[in-house]
């Protein structure tokens, strides 16, 4: 049986900031959800089900926060489901919601992801002392820094590439009113002079800690026909996972990421991602992950990703813009970060991305990863409905 085409007709985000002390968690998710409904010109009554995503419960210390968010999300009396796949959760949450529409289980679904990092300490949540085990000595960035060094060694990339990404993403964020970091005085020199935290990762090459939420309204063909603004159509979506550590794991370019991208491209009829995709919202919490993921996602041959970055191709006005919104490097409410990538990809093909719009973007990729490069989720959205 064929699948129902799925359209994004509403997108909503909070203004992401270090701490939203004026709202409860319920108030935070409510803001994003209302903005998505407003964008779609729909009401709570139009929503058939709610799919919500959140990173580890330890990050805020509310065990199963979805239990008390049903009223804030208009979900009373409706099916509600929570998804959890670490940093990639915002992406996989959107994909679960997509499947509910594609499978004709529900006509219109509200999907939302959030994080209120200010209420806790993600570093603590990630490094609980376990009896008998040697404590991990590195912290969140330290876990990824050795992989960055491995990438540099493998490809011969000059050590300036990471700062180019950070400089680009922080400048892009200035054009995005919802972005957390707005560094108006950013310069490449400032990025390069920022302290080395986990050598080879500098302070300005790391993501901030944000409070924020992102929501989308997904609907079927009939719902899209009623949409007041252009919908984004889902042309492909996939998730893959693999262990954090195993013999033969390629931490620089994990197989789960490659397989996930290949599946999305197959569904979407993408033969050459570099040529066929107009814009990419990629999960880059540490700047060097841009060239690494360019290779993992098939935009560049192995060892060539840094050359794309260095040549300016991934700039906002480049041939393959990456993280037009400023990316995770500028905004990181962890549980929402993946959905923001998906939502920003949708905004691009809807032509609604405002100042960070890529002229004429017809097909865009949203990408998320999480855990120790363990979970991957991606979707490809287009301005036109899928042909099949």
């Amino acid at each position, binding site marked *: 049986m064929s699948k129902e085409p799925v359209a994004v007709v509403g997108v909503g985000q909070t203004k992401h900031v270090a*701490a*939203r*002390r*004026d*709202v*409860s*968690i*319920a*108030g935070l998710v*409510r803001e994003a959800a209302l903005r998505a409904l407003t964008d779609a010109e729909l009401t*709570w009554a139009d929503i058939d089900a709610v799919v919500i995503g959140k990173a580890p419960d*330890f990050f*805020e*210390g509310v*065990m199963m926060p979805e239990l008390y968010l*049903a*009223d*804030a999300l*208009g979900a*009373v009396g409706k099916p509600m489901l929570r998804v959890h796949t670490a940093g990639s959760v915002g992406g996989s949450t959107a994909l679960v919601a997509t499947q509910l529409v594609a499978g004709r289980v529900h006509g219109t679904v509200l999907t939302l992801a959030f994080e*209120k990092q*200010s*209420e*806790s*300490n993600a570093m*603590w*949540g990630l490094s*609980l*002392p*376990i*009896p*008998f*085990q*040697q*404590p*991990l*000595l*590195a*912290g969140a960035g*330290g876990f990824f820094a*050795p992989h*960055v*060094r*491995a990438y540099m*060694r*493998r490809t011969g990339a000059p050590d300036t590439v990471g700062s180019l990404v950070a400089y680009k993403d922080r400048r892009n964020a200035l054009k995005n009113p919802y972005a957390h970091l707005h560094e108006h005085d950013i310069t490449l020199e400032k990025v390069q002079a920022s*302290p*080395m*935290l*986990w*050598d*080879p*990762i500098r302070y300005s090459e790391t993501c901030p800690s944000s409070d924020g939420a992102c929501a989308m309204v997904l609907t079927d063909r009939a719902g899209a026909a009623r949409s007041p603004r252009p919908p984004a159509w889902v042309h492909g979506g996939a998730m893959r996972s693999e*262990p954090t*550590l*195993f*013999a*033969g*794991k390629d*931490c620089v370019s994990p197989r789960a990421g490659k397989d996930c991208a290949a599946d999305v491209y197959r569904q979407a009829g993408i033969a050459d991602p570099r040529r066929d995709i107009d814009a990419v919202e990629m999960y880059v919490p540490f700047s060097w992950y841009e060239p690494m993921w360019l290779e993992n996602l098939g935009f560049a041959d192995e060892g060539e990703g840094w050359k794309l970055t260095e040549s300016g191709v991934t700039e906002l006005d480049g041939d393959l813009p990456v993280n037009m919104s400023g990316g995770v490097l500028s905004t990181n409410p962890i549980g929402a970060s993946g959905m923001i990538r998906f939502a920003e990809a949708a905004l691009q093909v809807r032509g609604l991305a405002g100042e960070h719009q890529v002229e004429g973007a017809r097909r865009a990729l949203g990408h998320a990863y999480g855990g120790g490069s363990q979970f991957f989720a991606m979707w490809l959205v287009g301005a036109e409905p899928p042909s099949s």
Partner: protein
Amino acid sequence: MPEVLKAPLVVEFPFTRSLGPVQSAFLTGLRERVVLGVRTTDGRTLVPPVEYDPVTADELRDLVEVAPTGTVTTWAWNHAPRRGQPLGTPFAWVLVRFDGADTALLHALDAPGPDSVRTGMRVRVRWAGERSGAITDIACFEPYDGGPGTPAGPTGHDGSFTDPVTGIVAPARLDYVYSPGRAQSAHLQALSERRTVGERCPSCRKVYVPPRGACPTCGVATTEQVEVGPRGTVTTYCIVNIKARNLDIEVPYVYAHIALDGADLALHGRIGGIPYDQVRMGLRVEPVWTEDGRHPDHYRPAGEPDAEYETYKELL
């Protein structure tokens, strides 16, 4: 078979909560001996108040004050109070519908015994002596034989107080008994003899250190023990410049992936005995043990020539 290890594990952290406008008013009210509810679109009064209408999903901001007296709607006797519960002596858990409210709040009732509690009994708030803007500002409920206290019905309240409580600290604590299982217990037993032992997958032949009891890629149990190391190769690393809490290591230090000889994936450890900026990929290292350490304290240069990249590039 060696003994499988076990140890207590306590996970504890003082999380914070931003209350938002409704919970802020409710908890600040308790501090001021005022019980606030919220009025729904259809005219019901919810105590404790919520931010969004459970029926219509409307935003609720219409606060009202109800009386500090009410009626027990249901209850259960608690024979043996535990740490952190409202009363130290046996008490009843009760749902109390305040006079003027349409919903009930869960709390404790101080009563002589289960025979003295019944559904429908009248109760009133016993305020805590020291109040801070928390649900514990209600010390408990106590039996009461009068009519509604003041105010008699729900009366409008703008929810504003001087010095409102906008956030609370909500400590979370979980107690576990943790067991690392058979494979890791055997590994730790070997480490106590300063030997490093992994397990080989019978299918792909890869040697896992530390062992997990199963191969994550083949999905089969692993039992064949293989001694690896003690020497190994630094495959990749970073230089840590951030001082970690509860970690008695001076920065900068080197956190490295170390492929022990004979192992098929790298384990993680600290490199010492060499200036941090002289550590390199391919450096050959050996473990350094301390008197009471369960694991090697760190790894130091073994004094051998560096390993060729080709020999460890699959083990980064």
